């Protein structure tokens, strides 16, 4: 049927079939007294609600069993285009690496509301907002793009991050065997997929994170707070200040969000926004021509989106002392960036410092990016193969620094 293998061997496939209660109260079956059942829906209660452009009530209240119950896309089997309601597609200047999967991101801000701009953090989205990200594996990474008919990309999972009254909630949906819909799998699972990257076939046991693993990356614990909130990672000014091809033509994403009425408070001059430079796999071949300063910006941007959601004082890796947000000044925070810094929580490897200037091969940061061994590899979650292009960037960045043995 397809040009490539996609045996669906989800470890957790059966978990949510028999009992909704086992899936964290999903399904909204306990809300059937609201009586808005629709004959076309797979679910009852609020998840079966068919009123409105999207199922806003379910988004704010219920962990539906099926992704389709939220009615986020015109075609329930295609989460890569044509969002319903106020849905807006977005992309980041530099993405988080996820085993070479393609990603399709959408933001849905409730009617008549808008997110508030923030210089460094994720925008302050109103309650009711949902961020939707679909992971899809191309048959060949040279030819990305989802086409339900051509079937060159295989849908894997769609993650919802919903801003509810009490905070953000992450829900992982895994696409079913016939790709007609995706089902909630709070315990995650493994999806074997295959892709070709630079002519080499990669057989990947793609790992859908469980709900608690979602939080490991998406947590934000403010200094002095006892609350470890869930936070989105991507929709920050520095990652969105770029142009994107919309149906209406090419436009800066922040400008587009303003024009759509979903973002307020943006500086009038977008050039004043410190922006992560674009780095995609095809850019690796251009690294040789980059100046040291360009490498610095590219590397800091890469480390920001790939590492700093944990490696920041508010994140899961706060205890490591390695803190690498893009806005953190490098020259006055060398140790925070790992330069000649001894590892705090790294038990393996024969290396001494996170970053040895001028010596990528002896830098733990580089080593852990080059490893696929559990306990060695970084990031811990969301990666099972090496991101060769990311590794090359970080290697060149470290080697561009003035050599220092750190001893």
């Amino acid at each position, binding site marked *: 049927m397809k040009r490539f293998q996609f045996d669906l061997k989800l470890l957790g496939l059966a978990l949510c079939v028999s009992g909704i209660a*086992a899936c964290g109260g999903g399904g909204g079956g306990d809300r059937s007294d609201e009586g808005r059942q629709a004959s076309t829906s797979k679910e009852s209660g609020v998840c079966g609600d068919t009123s409105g452009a999207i199922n806003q009530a379910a988004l704010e209240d219920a962990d539906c069993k099926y992704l389709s119950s939220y009615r986020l896309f015109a075609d329930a089997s295609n989460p890569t285009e044509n969002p319903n309601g106020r849905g807006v597609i977005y992309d980041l200047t530099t993405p988080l690496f996820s085993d070479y999967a393609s990603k399709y991101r959408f933001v849905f801000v409730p009617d008549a509301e808008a997110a508030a701009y923030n210089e460094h953090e994720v925008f302050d989205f109103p309650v009711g907002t949902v961020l939707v990200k679909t992971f899809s594996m191309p048959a060949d990474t040279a030819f990305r793009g989802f086409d339900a008919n051509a079937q060159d990309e295989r849908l894997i999972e769609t993650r919802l991050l919903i801003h509810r009254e009490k905070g953000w909630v992450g829900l992982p949906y895994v696409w079913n065997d016939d790709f007609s819909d995706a089902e909630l799998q709070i315990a995650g699972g493994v999806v074997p997929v295959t892709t070709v990257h630079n002519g080499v076939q990669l057989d990947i046991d793609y790992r859908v994170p469980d709900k608690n693993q979602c939080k490991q990356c998406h947590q934000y*614990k403010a200094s002095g707070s006892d609350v470890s909130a869930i936070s989105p990672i991507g929709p920050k000014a520095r990652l969105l200040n770029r142009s994107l091809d919309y149906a209406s033509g090419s436009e800066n994403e922040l400008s587009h969000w303003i024009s759509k009425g979903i973002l307020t408070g943006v500086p009038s001059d977008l050039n004043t926004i410190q922006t992560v430079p674009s780095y995609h796999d095809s850019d690796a071949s251009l690294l040789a021509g980059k100046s040291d300063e360009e490498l610095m910006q590219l590397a800091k941007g890469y480390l920001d989106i790939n590492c700093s959601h944990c490696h920041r004082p508010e994140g899961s890796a*706060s*205890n490591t002392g390695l803190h690498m947000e893009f806005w953190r000044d490098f020259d006055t925070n060398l140790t925070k960036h790992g330069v000649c810094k001894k*590892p705090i*929580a790294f038990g*393996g490897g024969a290396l001494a410092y996170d970053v040895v200037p001028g010596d990528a091969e002896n830098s733990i940061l580089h080593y852990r990016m080059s490893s696929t061994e559990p306990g060695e590899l970084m990031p811990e979650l969301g990666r099972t193969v090496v991101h060769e292009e990311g590794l090359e960037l970080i290697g060149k960045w470290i080697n561009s620094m003035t050599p220092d043995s750190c001893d």
Partner: protein
Amino acid sequence: MTGQHWLKSGLAAGALMATMALTGCGGGGDGSDEGSDQAAGPQFPAGAKMLAADNLTQDAKEAFINAQSGDVIVFPEGRFKISDKLTFDADSDGDGESVKNITIMGYGKGKTILDFSEATGGDGILVENGVDIIIKDIGVYEAANNAIKLKDTNGIHIQSVATVWEGVLDKDNGAYGLYPVECENILIEDSYVRGSADAGVYVGQSKNIVVRRNTAEENVAGIEIENSMHADVYDNVATGNTGGILVFDLPIGNGHYGSTVRVFDNDISNNNQENFANASSNPAGVHIVPPGTGVIVLSTNDVEIYNNDISDHKTTSVAISSFYLADENLDYSNPTYKPVIDDGWNPVPRNIHIHDNAISDSGAAPEGSLIADIITGYVTNYGAFPAVLYDGLGELLANTGTVEATAGAPFSAEDMICAENNSDVSFGQVYGTSATDPDNFDGSMMPKARLLFEASQSTLLNCATPLNRLTAATATINGKAYGCDSGESGDASAASCAL
């Protein structure tokens, strides 16, 4: 003074540079006794979530994700391969409402064994953002990185848990067995840790810690308290490790620095294992621990080591050191250290009290690359290596008043390193501590190693002003206080507290 290369220049001037071949001494225990479970059978409360043996990884994940306050999650009896890291976050939804009082347990630490040798995650069990977590009667084996890690958790009771890497002691074993970090109110008791390529019990960047009645066997470090405050370590057995019990304060730059640590009434013996940590050149990684060391205090303030039985260590029984020994490039002018010193880290230990320990059979065959020059100097000059060793360098530099930004102010009486009534063993101090004694400096006014030695303690660490006893640590879990001054009833280690 520049802050550079004191140690080397001092040693070059002060130590006889004769060479001596130190034997390899491949000692180390071969025991694999995992301890015995308590005779009583497992007791599970009504309503306990009994996980099924089939599909255990996914069932455990579901139970962890769906846990409600008061849940008892029971792993089945037997040994099971777990396929992924098991993460418990007490606030899965991040709404600030944590589920509390969660128990994760098995049928006994030798009866329920979770084998992570084929798991895709680095840690075995990871607990985050917990409030009152009880882990007991379970074994966690062969994790790629850490066996049980707990982060940002307030209230941890680990009881009768085993974390084990079996077989040959190897650098590729996991790092930490029981590993709370950035936590508070921690009680670790009656547990067994074996085979860690770093530390068996490792409490880091935490406070209010009680570690008692555990057995740490054949790890690089048996028990390590690092960058933590208010910790009591008592009535444990540390044997067959490279170093028995370590109290370290490292330059992390994270606002967490150690103080008020009491190590007492432990049985610390035969920690002569070859160091099998990775051969990292990290200045303060555990690979620097000299094989054959009982207790090490590095950089930490306010430590009391008393009434321990410290026997059979081929290098030294108790070592107290500033961070200068770990890294001669330590200086406020060094950009590696400036931010962490600004952050509150102190590289020079103060107020260290070593008393009433029974120390025996120390220094028969000293080794350790970090202190190779010191060993050579002592052995050459005295034919012996001190059972109690103090570097003295940090104190000397502090007393000069010239490097206050790095070493702190000159020592006052309450800052001293003091020892008394320790079995009349030998004492050594690498540097003199008086800034007014010209013998402590070379011609360039650089500190000069003295390699002071007393076969029987006389003036070294002999303080005119007695140090104050430190206060006990208390860990409060589920509203109940544990520890020496907690008013706890039925503590099997109460006799230790009376010391």
